[in-house]
């Protein structure tokens, strides 16, 4: 099966900084492709290079075997791009924004109007079609951005951090929307630093770090191949997590790495049951009150952390 998009040893440099360093991966028709990486990893550069916004320094980005930079007009017609920044005009209404971008894509007026209705209904904003964008909530604005990205019926939709800044409810709602869009036959490429998001909706994932693709594959494949720990989510009071971890290590507990998640600390351990005993003992010793404890199966984040060098 021929990939719809193929990155072949792509390099991109901004000033003296190499942002993309030999990117190689393929995306196939109908995939919901997740690109995961920390901020500054090169996700946005990679995605913008894909639509020809940036001209790569070397390497090739192919769409159905053709270099995108040689067919930019076609590429632009085929690609839709949703961003975390709500790329529309705040002073215009939903319909006006979509109508404007529809015209820039040189769509017939009738088709524009049809698409406006269809897409606004799809994103749940039809009732708000005449509402000024900056009067809408963050979630609505994000959905409007998605609708704008889809106004010209693209074959491939690129979403750069689509749920950034949204609350969990809105985020889930957005995921559902993305899945619905994907079900329409549109190949979707999502970049995110939220592993949960990628794990939930993507059929294929590529992890990027410092401009390099570390690994690609389905979430399950990656977890199977790279996860060796279980997660213990721990919340104590007063929550002197550094002392707790130091004491645990001192007492011989096997902790692969840790990460703080809000008021909680997540411990990655090979054997959760044994580790729990040691944790309870240390908490008592340190006069720390246990507020909450949860043990999970290993997630994609563990894989990500493993590749990106987290604790």
């Amino acid at each position, binding site marked *: 099966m021929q990939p719809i998009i193929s990155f072949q040893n792509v390099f991109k440099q901004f000033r003296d900084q190499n942002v993309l360093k030999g990117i190689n991966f393929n995306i196939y028709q109908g995939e919901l492709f997740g690109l995961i990486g920390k901020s500054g990893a090169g996700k946005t550069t990679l995605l913008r290079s894909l639509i020809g916004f940036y001209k790569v320094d070397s390497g090739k980005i192919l769409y159905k075997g053709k270099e995108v930079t040689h067919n930019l007009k076609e590429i632009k017609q085929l690609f839709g*791009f949703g961003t975390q*920044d*709500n*790329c*529309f*005009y705040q*002073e215009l209404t939903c319909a006006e924004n979509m109508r*404007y971008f529809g*015209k*820039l894509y040189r769509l017939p007026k009738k088709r524009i109007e049809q698409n406006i209705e269809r897409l606004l209904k799809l994103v749940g904003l039809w009732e708000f079609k005449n509402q000024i964008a900056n009067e809408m909530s963050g979630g609505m604005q994000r959905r409007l951005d998605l609708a704008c990205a889809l106004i010209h019926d693209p074959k491939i939709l690129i979403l750069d951090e689509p749920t950034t800044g949204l609350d969990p409810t809105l985020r889930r709602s957005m995921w559902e929307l993305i899945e619905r869009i994907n079900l329409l036959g549109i190949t979707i490429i999502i970049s995110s630093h939220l592993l949960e998001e990628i794990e939930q909706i993507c059929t294929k994932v590529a992890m990027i770090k410092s401009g390099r693709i570390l690994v690609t594959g389905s979430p399950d494949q990656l977890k199977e191949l790279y996860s060796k720990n279980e997660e213990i989510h721990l919340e104590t009071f007063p929550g002197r997590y550094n002392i707790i971890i130091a004491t645990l290590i001192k007492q011989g507990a096997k902790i692969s790495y840790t990460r703080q998640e809000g008021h909680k600390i997540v411990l990655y351990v090979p054997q959760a049951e044994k580790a729990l005993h040691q944790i309870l003992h240390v908490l008592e010793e340190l006069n720390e009150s246990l507020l909450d404890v949860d043990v999970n199966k290993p997630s994609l984040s563990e894989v990500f952390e493993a590749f990106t060098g987290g604790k």
Partner: protein
Amino acid sequence: MITELIAIINKNLRRLLRSKTSSLIILIGPLLLIGIIGLAFNKTGLFGIQIGVFSETKNDLVNSVLEKIDTEEFKMVMEESKQKCILGVEDGRTHLCLIFPPEINSTSNIEFHVDYSRLSLVFTLLNVISTKFNQQSSEMSMDLTKQLLEKVQETSKTLGDNANLITTLKENARILGDKLSTTVDSIENLGIDTDLSQFNVTLLRSQTEQNKVIIGDYEESVSTQIDESLVQLEKIKQMVIVAREDVRNRKKTTENLKESVDWAYEKQLCFAQQTEDLTPYLDDSEALNEKLLTLNNPTCSFLYTAQKNADESLETLETTEEQLNQLLIDIQKAKVELSEFKDESTFVFEAANTQLDTAIETFGTIETSVEGAKTQLENINSAKQTLSSDLSSANQLINENMLTFNTIEGIFSNIQNSISDMSIITPESIIRPFSTQIKPLKTKMKMLDYFFPSLIVLVVMFVSVLLASTLVMKEKETSAYFRNFITPANNFFFTLGNYLTTLLIAGVQISIVIIIAATMFKINPGANLGSLIVLVLLVITLFSFLGIIIGNLLRNEETTTLTAIILSVIMFMFSSMIIPIESMSPKIAGFARINPFVISEEVLRKAIIFNRGFFELGGSITILLIELIVLFGLTIVTFKVAKKQAEE
């Protein structure tokens, strides 16, 4: 392409007009602007100018000046002191302070105290006030010049009337010169250089002494001869007495003879008719005989002739007697005279001797005097030479004076001729040797008419620069900026769209301004409306490009707005709107002259005020077009820079 551009313009307009405040500013702004400016400047001249006046003394001259100024335009505020007057200007209570000197004359100054920080007013005010003062000053000068001209004419007349004085002076000088020459000659001819040694007084004295001796001898001789003469005279006297006695005797005899003849004549009875004088024939006997033969009575004739001869003899004898008597008298007289002569000669000789003594003595004195005279002569000779030289010099000076008199005469003549030839003989022609009349190129225009082209450029500049830069920056700052670039629309369309939006809004605003100005304030936007539209579009384009360049180069709205305002203010300041370009330094003025604001103002002024067509605008339109091309190039370059910045 058109669809995309329309979409971009539509979007820009919607974004701008979405805000009610923005809409109001865009639509009502020009209305307000033209309304306020129109009401403010739809008149000629100044209005409500307060002039503080301080004058220590109030006289007719001050009052006349103040009356001249005190018009509808100016209100006089009399100040109590100089300081208060100046303070009034500083405080803004008055616009100008006039301080009159205690005495107004040619050396005193009327002081104008103005606040130069009020640049826009001060030059106009000074111009108007100075004009009024100049008028008053001209009137005063007119009177003074009239008096001056009268004096000149009087002088000319006096010169003419007294021209003969110079001639007299010259003649007198000439005479004086001649006399001096003569005097010099005379002096030179003076025999002062006589050799006094020739005066041999000693010899003279010696000779005089000898002469005295001779005279003494001569005196004696004379006396002797006089005595001898007296003796001889006495002898002659006696002889004359004898002769006189003899004559007297002969006379008596003749008288007796005659008595006898008279008696015979009577006895003969001779009548007068019978007698004839025979005397002429007595010497010729034949003639006498013949005569006698003819006579009636020859005896009577003889008797008559004898009678007559006797009378003659008597007469002769009486004469001789008388002569002898006279001779005796003369002899006696001579004797007396000789005696007197003798006495006199004695006296004379005595006097002569005295005189000679005196002469001898005098000669001695003279001898001494001659010696002194010699010295005196030498001095005189020296003085003569000096005098001669001085007189020659004086004569030369008189000759020179003659030349000077000729020159003076010529000068006087020239002065008189010049005065006569004076073509400027009226005070008006001196005070105003040439009349100036300020004629506006266009008449009956109000301030707004003159200000109108600048107003349009001002509106266009601020609207275009600010709007274009704001549009670019708003576009750059919006997150939609990225989405625009990933559409198939040509990237440059967005710049073009911004430009067209600016053009549309500024065009609408200018149209509103022009329509209101034309309808409400009767401003004539120029005969060539087509050219005006094209020019306004070009000017909007020019400033729009500037705004777009600013927007492209800068990175946030605040600095963009600030830069646009600063740039507009700089262009405004470096035009002639506040301070004339000509008052700037040459280098800066050179740049100011190609200032887009100045060029735009120039082309619009020509088009609106002078009704020039597009192709009649000369170099200004060329510069405008060159600037447009340059700015267009810069717009493209800066757009690419901005896009690159956005990509990074």
